[in-house]
């Protein structure tokens, strides 16, 4: 049987662990944010390359058309399946 005293000690230990994990999480988040900002600076240094990407291309519209038709077929087939009650194996 755990005594009340033992329970309180254990609870204190767990709370300390939670605090520690929280602090670690906060630190890691901060590190990640700093790393992301470094990456942002690095990408901004290559802004001239992004200028070329920042224009609409006809090929992309064509790709959208193809993907849209595929997805539309899937959506229609899903709808039909739900109406008829049949399921794909």
């Amino acid at each position, binding site marked *: 049987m755990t005594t009340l005293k033992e329970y309180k000690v254990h609870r204190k230990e767990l709370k300390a662990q939670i605090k520690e994990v929280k602090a670690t999480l906060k630190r890691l988040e901060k590190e990640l944010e700093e790393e*992301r*900002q470094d*990456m*942002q*600076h690095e*990408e*901004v*240094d290559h*802004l*001239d390359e*992004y*200028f070329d*990407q*920042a*224009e*609409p*291309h006809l090929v*992309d*519209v064509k*790709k*959208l*058309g193809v*993907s*849209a*038709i*595929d*997805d*539309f077929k899937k*959506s229609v087939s899903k709808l039909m399946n739900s109406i008829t009650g049949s399921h794909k194996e």
Partner: protein
Amino acid sequence: MQPSNTGESTQSKNMIVQWLFVTLMIYLLLVAVGMIGSGFKWASGGAEGARQLFAFATNPVMGLVAGALATAVVQSSSTVTTVIVGLVAGGLPVATAIPMIMGANIGTTVTNTLVSMGHIGKKKEFRRAFSAATVHDFFNLMAVMIFLPLEIMTGFLASTSEYLANFLVGGDSLSIKGLNFVKVMTAPVVDLFKGVFGSLPDLWGGICLALTGLAFIFISIIFLGKLLKHLMVGRAKQLLHKAIGRGPATGIFSGMMMTVAVQSSSTCTSLIVPLAGNGIFKLREIYPFTLGSNIGTTITALLAATAVQGSMGFFALQIALVHLLFNVSAVLLIYNISFLRVIPPTLARRFAQVASRNKWMVLVYVVGVFFVIPAILIAITA
């Protein structure tokens, strides 16, 4: 050391030539606005004729749709707003032009949405890029949904811009203080082209003059964009470096300054789409930058207004100020009220999630919102 010096001097010579071209293109833009104004006035026979010609747009929804469709087709809000300034200079009533200016804001968002299609092959990347693009769409749609009814009910944009235009123009001459030289510089070229088309009947002479102005606007904005993109890339980098890790106000400011530098909101808002796609920039960082772009793009119409001669210069300035006031008010209202502020990014995120799973929705959205619905509405009214 000699080759390096020669290289540097060649580079600086190239820079000088490019800046001279920029000056030339700005001059061409100003001349073009003057030509559209004069041509439109000439063809329509003055303010009454202009009013009759644009009678279809007296319905504000029609004006809005016309502005949106025209911008989506030419993919440049600067071109459309400059043409609107020219039309106002030619007699188009400011009240009719206000919804058109708002429509240009909606139409310009199609460009970055199309740019986001470049990521369609990768689901996650596309979701991020598409939400970064559509946050602009949702913000501008929301701004119009708030401000168009407000303008119809109160006319606050028209009256505030009138007050500001009165404040800016000098006395009876109705010309912007200190910018008279612009009109002096552009008038001879406009008169030259008027002379060229002078032998034609009034209607055709005016149409030819306005169309030549339109062609000049296209040429000047396309080349200006290309030149400034090349010349201002260093400045754009500096602005973005400074904005990284700072608050939304810096984001808005950098978006505004970058758009002023490259004279194109489409370029700026499209530029951040691939940066969002690769996950380096988050939607919450892109959102204020986009709003800054909306404000920065108004500089073109203001610049164009300086070219208009005579009493119509006042109205040209007024409509340019409407563009500025509308965008500033939208940012101040929507971005400052927290429950309004979260609507565009939330909608953009949710729509991107659904759209990345069902790409046909993207196609329906782009074709429907920017082209089919406006075309149907125009056809119905016509």
